């Protein structure tokens, strides 16, 4: 497809389980970002990848959260030992670089029971 894709679209898990969320950015985009939106809140920055540079992880809320980007393309966000407060829509975005983000994916809605 032409846009950013994310999978799964919905994920329901039990507290304490690990989850992996996948993002396929637009081909050729060097920058990739993860944000999350909790109920009633704005989007919260999590992590940013730019080319081969070390990622900016300053937004990750705890060490239970990690992300990697393989081959400069697909990215996986992993949440270990999920907690109920992790419930949110997790959004991935990509761009060619520069300020601002042009293209978000549809998001993965994570529900932790």
């Amino acid at each position: 497809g032409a846009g950013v894709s994310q999978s799964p679209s919905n994920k329901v898990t039990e507290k304490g389980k690990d989850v992996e969320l996948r993002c396929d950015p637009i081909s050729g985009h060097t920058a990739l970002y993860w944000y999350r939106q909790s109920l009633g809140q704005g989007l919260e920055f999590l992590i940013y990848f730019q080319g081969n540079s070390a990622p900016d992880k300053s937004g990750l809320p705890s060490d239970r959260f990690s992300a990697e980007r393989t081959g400069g393309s697909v990215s996986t966000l992993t949440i270990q030992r999920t907690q109920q407060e992790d419930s949110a829509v997790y959004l991935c975005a990509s761009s060619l670089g520069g300020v601002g983000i042009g293209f978000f994916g549809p998001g993965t809605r994570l529900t932790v029971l």
Partner: protein
Amino acid sequence: DQQVKQNSPSLSVQEGRISILNCDYTNSMFDYFLWYKKYPAEGPTFLISISSIKDKNEDGRFTVFLNKSAKHLSLHIVPSQPGDSAVYFCAASEDGGTSYGKLTFGQGTILTVHP
């Protein structure tokens, strides 16, 4: 600490009239501002942006105004159309050009344009 605030959770406007969406920020280091539009079950899409060296940027029906002294920006949509009905997010960046996608978002305003 909410550094970017959209104090109006919702706005209702008649088709053809002007929609004005407001956003306030507290961080004086922000120097680049963006507006995004989001439809249900879709990711936000970039709408328009403005650098702090300007006070106005226009793109078709959309105009963004920036008042740095008041730390306030607004998005004007005129004329409003039913297809503009969506959630609008304002976002801000520090050190424009180097902070790239690390944006701070407001909570969003739901705009409803009635036919």
